[in-house]
């Protein structure tokens, strides 16, 4: 089973072989845990995020919703990355409440009112920015598209991108640099402005 690919293990797991999950976890636990830890620098919290990441993976696989578009580990890291972002968002809201309600012992109605989410106009602008960005990405060479997606959409470090693409860190840095230069050129040529 050690020689089996992730795809084979996933298929066997989805067909009821629980041992395959154990192999999958053991194969990727170090890489995934370190990915989480070096974003949080907190071992306990990293264990929590690691657990939540695999719960999402288990549920998605069991429900048959997994679509293999990329490597399993990249998908797992994307889930972990999103959970870390959720954690920071929640943390920033909690700090805001404690500052006035506990430390100064003052109650402010603004602390319990939910922060306004993006209004329709903001959402439309965000969608427009994403659409423009994706259209521009298609114009880049494949290797530059790949590094931009891994770096800015999946949140991977340059070292991880280098490992994933079987290149050196310098090559990765070069590709990201040229990709950004090319994106700026495309923006100038097409008079695209991405900021709000």
């Amino acid at each position, binding site marked *: 089973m050690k020689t089996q690919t992730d795809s084979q293990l996933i298929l066997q797991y989805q067909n009821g072989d*629980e041992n395959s999950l154990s192999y999958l*976890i053991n194969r990727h636990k170090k890489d995934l845990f370190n990915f989480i830890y070096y974003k949080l620098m907190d071992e306990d919290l990293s*264990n929590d995020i*690691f657990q939540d990441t*695999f*719960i999402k993976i*288990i*549920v998605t696989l069991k429900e048959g919703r997994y679509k293999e578009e990329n490597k399993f580990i990249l998908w797992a890291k994307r889930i972990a990355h999103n959970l870390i972002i959720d954690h920071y968002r929640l943390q920033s809201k909690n700090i805001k409440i404690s500052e006035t309600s506990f430390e100064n012992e003052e109650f402010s109605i603004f602390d319990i009112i939910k922060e306004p989410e993006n209004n329709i106009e903001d959402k439309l602008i965000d969608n427009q920015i994403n659409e423009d960005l994706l259209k521009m990405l298609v114009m880049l060479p494949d290797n530059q598209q790949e590094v931009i997606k891994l770096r800015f959409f999946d949140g991977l470090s340059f070292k991880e991108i280098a490992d994933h693409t079987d290149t050196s860190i310098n090559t990765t840095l070069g590709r990201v640099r040229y990709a950004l230069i090319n994106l700026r050129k495309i923006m100038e040529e097409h008079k695209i402005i991405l900021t709000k």
Partner: protein
Amino acid sequence: MKKNDTLTKKALMPKKEIIDFLLNYSKNIQTLKTKNRKAILVSKN
């Protein structure tokens, strides 16, 4: 002389209890298909 490894990344692992929990969690849930072919997860217990 002791090697200065402050720049070396510390390799960490998740706790064994977490792995055990995940494997047990996986064993204790099962998928049921609804009439409209939607999969739902339920506890085996």
